[in-house]
């Protein structure tokens, strides 16, 4: 219970992290890169895999992040960095929460429901956040097959409708389109930062760094495949297809007879997404708990963080377009900085002696 296994980390990168990128990111990529949507995504994925590799190497010391930071910057410096990361995680959680709320309201309800229908998420999230980060391993074990089943099910229903030639000719969007799409999609890539919180909670074994990076790339390959199918189905209309994963399967021929059987798979993926959306909030709690040297109890941190996230969500719920604009065009740099670069730089930290 106190330790994660390598397998659980691989499961996270292979089956859980990709799920968070299936809601609004595909349409957003199309808005910048059109049929070249795979390339900016690939860039982020390669950068993320590189950062994952670096974080895993830094995790060889088998010390949790607060201790790694304390050894390099002293206790006060470490606390400051942890609070900074806590703020980043809270900030990073807002968009996944918003997109999940919009998804839920649009996919699971015939008429737009009250925001109350989404509020139970924060009850679940508060419970989830109050648990130690290392306990997530068991949840990853359970979620991985559910996620794989949901994804494969959707793909089986969607692939027959896809025309992959729509992706050609490659490079039509040009450098500007590529850059625009890369900037706009940056906010979906902060998994290496989450991985930082797992440091010291698993036994590092030889080869784990490249294996984790490889599993991260495999998960990314699944997302790329999804993007290709998505564009193959909707082509030029893809730009308007928000909540991509809920739409790719609805053209399956048997649905008229059997009903929306794809909802079975959608439910499975939404279940996994609920955990994925709560993870940054849990990471925020872990940072606050570590930054205060354990003086802020986890349940208190969980309540505070979820209350803050709820407040942010309520504040921005009628300003979704402005929030999107603000995040994607003004503050997009925060995500590569905190989500990829800084985690990768932990490799350079002075490592405390490994405890055996």
């Amino acid at each position, binding site marked *: 219970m106190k330790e994660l296994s390598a397998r659980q980390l691989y499961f996270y990168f292979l089956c859980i992290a990709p799920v968070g990128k299936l809601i609004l990111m595909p349409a957003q990529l199309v808005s910048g890169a059109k049929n070249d949507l795979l390339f900016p995504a690939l860039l982020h994925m390669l950068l993320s895999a590189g950062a994952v590799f670096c974080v895993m190497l830094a995790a060889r010391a088998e010390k949790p992040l607060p201790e790694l930071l304390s050894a390099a910057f002293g206790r006060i410096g470490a606390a400051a960095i942890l609070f900074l990361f806590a703020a980043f995680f809270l900030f990073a959680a807002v968009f996944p929460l918003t997109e999940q709320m919009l998804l839920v309201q649009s996919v699971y309800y015939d008429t737009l429901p009250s925001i109350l229908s989404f509020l139970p998420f924060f009850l679940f999230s508060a419970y989830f956040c109050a648990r130690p980060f290392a306990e997530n391993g068991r949840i990853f*074990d359970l979620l991985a097959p559910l996620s794989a089943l949901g994804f494969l099910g959707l793909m089986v229903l969607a692939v027959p409708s896809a025309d992959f030639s729509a992706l050609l000719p490659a490079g039509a969007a040009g450098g500007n389109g590529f850059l625009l799409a890369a900037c706009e999609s940056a906010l979906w890539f902060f998994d290496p930062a989450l991985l930082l919180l797992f440091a010291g909670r698993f036994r590092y074994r030889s080869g784990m760094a490249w294996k984790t990076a490889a599993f991260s790339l495999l998960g990314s390959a699944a997302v790329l495949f999804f993007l290709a199918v998505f564009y193959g189905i909707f082509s030029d209309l893809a730009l308007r297809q928000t909540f991509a994963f809920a739409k790719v399967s609805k053209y399956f021929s048997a649905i008229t007879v059997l009903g929306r059987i794809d909802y079975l798979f959608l439910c499975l993926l939404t279940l996994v997404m609920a955990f994925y959306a709560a993870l940054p909030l849990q990471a925020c709690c872990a940072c606050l708990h570590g930054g205060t040297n354990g003086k802020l109890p986890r349940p208190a941190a969980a309540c505070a963080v979820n209350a803050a996230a709820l407040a942010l969500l309520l504040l921005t719920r009628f300003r979704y377009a402005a929030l999107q604009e603000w995040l994607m065009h003004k503050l997009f740099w925060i995500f590569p900085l905190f989500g990829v670069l800084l985690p990768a730089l932990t490799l350079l930290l002075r490592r405390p002696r490994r405890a055996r």
Partner: protein
Amino acid sequence: MNKITGTLRRDEAELKRLLPAEDVLTFPFRGQDGREFLLVFADPVTDKELLGEQVIRPLGDYGGGMSAKEVAECLTSPEIKQLSRVSDLAAEILAGNPVLLWEGADAGLACGTKKVFARAVAEPPTDVTVKGPREGFVEDVKINCALVRKRLKTCELRLHTVQIGRRSKTAVTVCYLDGISDMAVVKQVKRILRRIDIDVLPDSSYLIHFLSPKPHSLVKRVGTTEKPDIFCAKIAEGRVGILADGSPIALTVPYLLAEDFQSAEDYFVPAARATFTRLLRLFALLTAIYLPAFYIAAQLYKLQLFPVKLLLTIMGSIQGIPLSPSLEMLLVLLVLEVLNEASIRMPKYVGMALSVVGALVLGETAVRAGFVSTPAIIIIAFSGIGLYAVPNLIEATSVVRLLMLLVAGSTGPYGIILFTAFLLCFLCRCESFGTSVLAPFSPLIARDLKDSLVKYELSALGMRPRALNSKNKRRMAP
């Protein structure tokens, strides 16, 4: 004062003072040379025929030494205990073991001639199998131990008995295989049992409360069975078993949730059939929990979940129903639960009448009167049957179904998903004696999956489950 004095009258008086009940009798008699003996026994629980044969008759001809050891050697009872404290002797009398005293005795002798009140070993009503052994545990712990010993003829089988209950003095036996069970679990079980301070222990289910770290939790942490073959198989896997006198239900720890999806019969039929049945049980359970909830959520929030033709049929049925879908479903569920409870408690001969009243009068008339719709009745009926596909989990699953129904009615499909997420999160935390109840799925133990929801051929099950942390890993030669 508590030690016996050797003066027969004084010791008799002391025992009488401790045991003033009218069913505690004394029987004075003399030996061959006129020496006086006294038997003190609790009349209803003593086998007097055996007492006469094994104690009184040998002493009638006895003329040897009068030390406790010498007298004990003359008796033909195989269970003789030498005790010198009057309170210990009183406890033995109450347990059904008569106490023998004599003038000048340095200790009393408790003779094991207890009368055993036990029904015959029969097939347990809650655990019926078509193929396989039909013996079930009974209410006597000694017979139960014998049933276990009959199946595990090994010196590694350890039986450790403790007395629990200040007044009931119930014998509770811990069974495990030395060298196979995790000794940490054995020690923990023994420690918990030693610490129990309760007045009366009427049944082994009381022990579950003490063995569970969170007794109020919906998820059980202790496995139960009424069949000695299952009990022995579990012990042989590395679990620790607990038998309580007066209860036919044996307990096993650590408990895994997957256990309740298995049945004894799975091991007597081809592996493919066993796998199919286990998956069927899982399907039935999931459908029983989720079907009513999704039906309500679809009706209230997302009609698109129904195929068009089904939607038209449902719309036709629910037209004119005065209750909201959630209320309607809750009402039908409540009726089902009441019928269920009543049919279990009701005398058998009224059972048929109850079925008629339940099925025809309540069900059909309610539909005809337009109080409830036919789909609601069908769904709840299927749900009711589905839950009993995994009967050992019924206490938890019926509550989960009700909660799921409430959540679906108030927050719709997303509420169901979130509640499921919460349940998964909660289940991941639940442990039974250091083992996750969700093992071998979480944490994933690939080797143990061979006998979880799927069942491999016996030849593939050469190793004991890793989740149980058994010292001896291999149970079958490769």
